[in-house]
């Protein structure tokens, strides 16, 4: 019901999955399990996935909340252009990265979690979402109105312009200048 942004959930999942993958890899390498080379690959793949997924995408509508310090990651990820912008590429990349994890005990969980994240990314891509960088807006600063620099022409009291209109026949005796032209019979 309503438009769900799958990519946001997939992003959280893949970040967590990357961490799980890397942790499993560390356990595997530290314990020198059989097949520890896969664990070493798991560490590298996990760290790479974390770095890729750290910058959040801009939301379709609504305010986007950045992760702390994500600006430099945004710039790096944005530099790859359509490779990182397209979620199909990400889905297949995660699917490919997770396969070697299945061959080793410690990284099995990381493999499954990354696989689930890859499926959600596929769903996001099918729904037509894509990654947008959150860049700081460079708006021109608000311009103060020019009239504020000119001193007022009339002595006090100074009513607002609409009350300053005087009847045309009393123009000679009027004490104020008329900013708006007046005609008889208005």
């Amino acid at each position, binding site marked *: *019901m*309503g*438009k*769900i*942004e799958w990519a*946001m*959930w997939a992003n*959280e*999942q893949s970040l*967590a*999955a990357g961490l*799980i993958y890397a*942790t*499993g890899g560390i*356990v595997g390498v530290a*314990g020198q*399990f059989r097949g520890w080379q896969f664990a070493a690959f798991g560490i590298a793949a996990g760290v790479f996935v974390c770095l890729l997924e750290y910058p*959040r995408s801009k*939301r379709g509508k*609504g305010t986007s*909340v950045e992760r702390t310090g994500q600006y430099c990651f945004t710039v790096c990820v944005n530099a790859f252009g359509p490779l990182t912008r397209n979620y199909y590429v990400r889905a297949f990349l995660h699917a490919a990265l997770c396969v070697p994890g299945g061959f080793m*005990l*410690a990284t*099995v*969980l990381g493999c*499954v*979690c990354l696989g*689930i994240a890859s499926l959600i990314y596929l769903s996001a891509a099918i729904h037509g979402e894509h990654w947008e960088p959150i860049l700081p807006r460079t708006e021109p600063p608000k311009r103060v109105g020019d009239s504020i620099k000119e001193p007022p022409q009339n002595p006090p009291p100074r009513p607002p312009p609409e009350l300053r209109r005087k009847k045309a026949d009393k123009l000679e005796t009027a004490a104020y200048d008329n900013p708006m032209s007046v005609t008889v019979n208005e």
Partner: protein
Amino acid sequence: MSVALKSWRANEGPKHLITMVWIAANVFLFWKTFMVYFSEAQYYYLHKMLGLGLCISRASASVLNFNCSLVLLPMCRSLLTFLRGSQRVTGRRVRRLLDKSKTFHVACGVTICIFSVVHVSAHLVNMVSFSVRYSEDFPGLNVAQYRGQDPRILIISTVPGVTGVLLVLVLFLMFTASSYCIRVSSYEIFWYTHNLFIVFYVILMVHVAGGALKYQSNVETHPPGCLHNNLSSWTNHKAAGEKGAESSGAPQTVCQEEAHFQPHFPQYILLNCPSVSSFENHPFTLTTCPTGKNQTFGIHLRVLGDWTSRFSQLLLQQSNSSEILPMMQQRRYPTVHVDGPFGSPSEEVFNYEVSLCVAGGIGVTPFACVLQALFDDWRQYKLKRLYFVWVCRDLQSFYWFADLLCGLHERLWRDNRPDYLNVQLYLSNTQGLQSISEERYRFLSSRLRIGRPKWKLIFQEIGRANQLKRVGVFCCGPKGISKALHTLCNSNPHTETAFEYNKESFS
């Protein structure tokens, strides 16, 4: 910045105390279980086979047991409402602790995730140890079928292994969908994944079956270290499974229904409209509570997301029809299921002598119920003075309850208590010249200020006027306001007045 001790003790003391007790319980459980598996005689041979992995995995399992049983309790709405409502069982301090139930739930959840990581890592090491250190001396102790069996087969072929993997997957789905961003952007993902907790608990019950870790049952006749080969049966180790489980548009008043409950004020209900969505329940604060004279209740809802916009379309489509039905007005309102009422922190407004209620925008709804109750009969409550501060972005928002505020003011003026209610309205959008121009709302227009409120000055004024009293501060609004108020409550310069901070939140 000085810290007012009396206020700090009232606001932060009980919370920190409970946190310390909870952490101490976790540490004690971890340490005790660790020592049992490290040094007890019945686990001697198992410990020799598995090493430290056994102790860490069992210790983290006991912490997980404890937290899994606690994590559901803060979310039992009816239980919390019962505890809040019973005056004899709990005092005000305990009731204020109940406001922090969601924070406690999150703390237990995070602990479950962290210790799951520890538990899984330790069991991975155990799997490898079972495989590598296959014991021919004590065949009953083994989980592997032969030396060097692939540990992944051990995971798939044992009940704890398979259920463990499933548990981690469910926990992964639940955890990743519960971050603040996802809750704010698409609440349905969070809601539906979090309801997988039922699956989680069912699998958790099954997880301990199968008895992979065994203890020695005849320690007296065969003390550890003795090399006698006459071993009796190894008993399966059964660990005790603990049972544990809003944008634009003015709000519209909805459904004045016949009520069958006697609530305290204010409270919230859950609405479910099957024609909009069969699974979603949305909380709304009651703005009109039923009283002895008027047995109806009402809510104000702000149209912000897809559920509320669809709901409001269903309700308003009657008024768009241009046909004139002379005989019978056929109004087909949608069916609405109501669950509740559930208690909220703002119930305590009446139990202080002086209360300060701060509302931000639509957050005024809990206090609307308070004002309505005061309008009906202000004499029966302990409350002697109410400060009401309402901050809004648009001028139009003040019209939602303008009649109620003016009516209450007139009633108090007639009853010769003009100092009872002290209203300040703030318009935070400073563009343009805005004022409430209607004659009958003169009470409000003279109290309308443009700009954001200066909380320090307000606190100073309240402190000076109510010395030696305990002031209850109630906030329902955006995070910025509640943080500012919380800091001020703890550090106000008037040390004779104690400010007790209570916050109500919707998400």
